[in-house]
């Protein structure tokens, strides 16, 4: 949205030039228009284009399915109908007609009005303006996900990935350490919150009969998440204390060890289901709940990293000795960063457990670590935008390229390598997330140089 290049000496980005002077408010309105168009006319458009179904992930899925069919036909001799090739341009046209053109069109047409509205909102307290933007964003996502349950589950898991990635970015990005224990924090959060919800409110084979019967038991879900996050933070203490003295490779090894300890702990704890895990979590992690928690998480983490303490994190990253000399209490800083990061990872774990409604220790292994590290480094270190971009793009790509099967695992790592070559710190690294500026009016398409 506010992807315009701020660095001096560079002109407005191509995206920004096309979108014109539309502020975030205008773009959100445009996005809402897109999903409404899709909601009411998407089926007709896809029928008109002779697409077999309404494209579910912006047409990328349709394209990768055709490509997969083509690859199978070429290398394995599978049957392939040439007519399917026509789905390639059709998916592109669908994307253009339903998303791209309305977004640009509405964005440009409403730019004047949206700028005036944004200016009016900017005069109001920040929370009011933020609520308006978030409301628009939620409605857009709600309508978009309402069209298909597959979108809904993808969106839910993507939002959780955003929170999880951001929480790791505190440690790996802002503090500049290489921590490998994040899946363990997620596991602790997932288990403790499941223990709370399943143990108290659900009849379960592993954890026994429900202890409490309450008509509004879902209202306790925030408590479950906080407990999960708190337990993860408590676990982080174990890793934060040795991290006082270690840096770099050694911290990576200690934290990796912690990951394995936690995983085997849950594997061996028969009261928590052992390797079989816990199933039957209540279905409480709905889209509004996840959206609210993730937004809250982003807000708090953003405040944290832009606070004095957050700046101290950067100081510790750049030179620990110098930071210490400049009166930064490095111990306290490291400890806080670990605890905050682990807390939100635990909350993400609690959400994940209640979306999948099943957890087992194997889910929180090295594979999960690789996934989240890829999201952090792909999106960009030291940046809230970066975490959002990284988590969303890797999740969506992983989903949209699923039909390619094994080729997907060539394509995504290749993309990572390319990003690391051309942008070694990730796509949108080291950029502050200034809420006021992001939501403000955009009178001039090109601000100061």
């Amino acid at each position: 949205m506010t992807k315009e290049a701020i660095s001096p000496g560079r002109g407005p980005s191509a995206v920004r030039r096309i979108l014109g002077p539309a502020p975030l408010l205008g773009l959100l309105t445009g996005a809402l228009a897109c999903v409404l168009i899709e909601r009411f006319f998407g089926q007709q458009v896809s029928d008109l284009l002779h697409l077999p179904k309404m494209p579910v992930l912006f047409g990328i899925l349709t394209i990768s399915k055709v490509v997969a069919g083509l690859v199978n036909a070429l290398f394995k001799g599978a049957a392939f109908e040439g007519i399917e090739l026509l789905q390639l341009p059709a998916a592109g046209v669908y994307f253009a007609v339903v998303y791209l053109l309305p977004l640009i069109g509405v964005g440009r047409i409403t730019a004047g009005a949206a700028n005036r509205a944004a200016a009016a909102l900017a005069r109001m307290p920040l929370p009011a303006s933020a609520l308006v933007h978030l409301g628009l964003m939620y409605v857009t996502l709600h309508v978009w996900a309402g069209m298909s349950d597959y979108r809904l589950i993808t969106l839910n898991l993507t939002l959780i990935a955003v929170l999880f990635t951001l929480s790791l970015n505190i440690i790996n990005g802002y503090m500049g350490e290489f921590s490998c224990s994040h899946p363990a924090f997620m596991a602790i959060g997932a288990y403790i919150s499941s223990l709370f919800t399943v143990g108290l409110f659900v009849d379960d084979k592993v954890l026994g009969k429900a202890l409490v019967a309450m008509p509004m038991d879902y209202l306790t879900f925030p408590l479950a998440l906080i407990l999960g996050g708190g337990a993860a933070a408590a676990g982080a203490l174990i890793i934060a204390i040795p991290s006082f003295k270690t840096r770099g490779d050694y911290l990576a090894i200690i934290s990796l060890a912690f990951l394995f300890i936690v995983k085997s702990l849950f594997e061996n704890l028969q009261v928590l289901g052992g390797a079989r895990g816990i199933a039957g979590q209540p279905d409480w992690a709905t889209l509004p709940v996840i959206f609210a928690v993730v937004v809250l998480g982003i807000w708090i983490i953003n405040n944290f990293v832009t606070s004095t303490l957050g700046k101290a994190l950067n100081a510790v990253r750049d030179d620990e000795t110098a930071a210490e000399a400049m009166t930064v209490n490095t111990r306290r800083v490291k400890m806080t960063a670990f605890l905050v990061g682990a807390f939100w990872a635990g909350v993400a774990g609690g959400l994940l457990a209640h979306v999948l409604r099943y957890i087992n220790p194997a889910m929180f292994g090295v594979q999960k670590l690789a996934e989240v590290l890829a999201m952090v480094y792909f999106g960009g270190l030291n940046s809230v935008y970066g975490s959002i971009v990284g988590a969303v793009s890797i999740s969506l790509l992983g989903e949209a390229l699923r039909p390619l099967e094994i080729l997907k695992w060539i394509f995504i790592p290749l993309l990572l390598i390319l990003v690391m070559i051309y942008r070694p710190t990730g796509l949108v690294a080291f950029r502050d997330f200034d809420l006021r500026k992001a939501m403000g009016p955009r009178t001039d398409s090109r601000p100061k140089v």
Partner: protein
Amino acid sequence: MRKGLLLMVTLIGLGLALSPAAGAANDVIRLGFPIPLTGENPDVGASSKNAAEMYLKQVPTVVVAGKTYALKFVYEDNEFKAESAVKAITKLITEEEVLGVIGPQASAQAVPAGEVANNYATPMISPWSTNPNTTLNRPYVFRGCFLDPFQGPVAANFATEEFGAKKAAVLYDIASDYPKGLAEFFKQAFEKIHGPGAVVAFESFTTGDKDFSAQMANIVASGADILFTPQYYSEVPLIVRAAKENGFSKPIMGSDSWGSGDLMGLCGDDCKGLFFSTHYAAAGAQGATKAFIDQYSAAYGKTPDDVAALTWDSLGLMIQAIQNTGGLSGDIKADRTKVKDALAAIKDYPGITGKMTFTPEGDPIKCAVVVKINDQGQFAFHKSVCP
């Protein structure tokens, strides 16, 4: 820009002119396969897909109440991950609009996926999952294999009768759902026959371990008459060799997990003469089972493993149930429930892995076989054990 637009318009025009009229989709029965085509266990996905493709070649169309339907299978990669399996099955049910689902295979994916299938009221058969939670309280979820609480006693009884074993040792992977469950069921059953303490060594390791000498030393010292190790094909050769090197000369027996993958290629002569309980025996098979094995071997150049055989049977069950519905209405939601009811009502389905009838929980009642790995390295039928 203008050229691009022109090209687009031409292509759309072409698309409109060439594409066949919509609406032919009514005469197609779509089944979904959320299977691990990539990830840690691609062999499992490949076997499932092979079996399904072979089935499709043999049975391209199904007649339901006088109307012919073309079969169409949709494969979705679950990456051997729980999250991915949930997304894959949701996609199959809501986007691909499949009538029924075969898979996922392993319990770690089948348990969460079963929840999704049950929520969307879509019949699902997991051919290979042994976790009780997969089908528990889920009327729409079935499985194609017998459960560990049955296989454990089979192995315990066999060890007692065949080898006269009085003391047994168990070596299992504590971090993996299936071996751990089965090891415990074996222990229970064996101690029920021979009294508490009859399992003299109950040794564990963690997924990925390659050195078993410490556990073997304990097992040898315990004086066990038999070693039971319900591990996967990749670990069995290491365990068998470790046993030999540490001087354990008593029989070793295993479970159905031995039968998948390339056990003999990895194990060679060391595994000859050992026994394991499983779903079916490839060598010495007869009738439909033999026909299946011959065709599969001819098509893919290897003997079908139990995943392939169970997938074949699950698919057969699903098709049988669809035929038993007595006609599909075209309303996918109503049809899914009809298929579920028909599945639950199937009696004595003659599968290649034995006769199957579902319990109300959706688990089949079927016989297990004990196979012996013969001197040619084939899995030969030794004994059939029925519940």
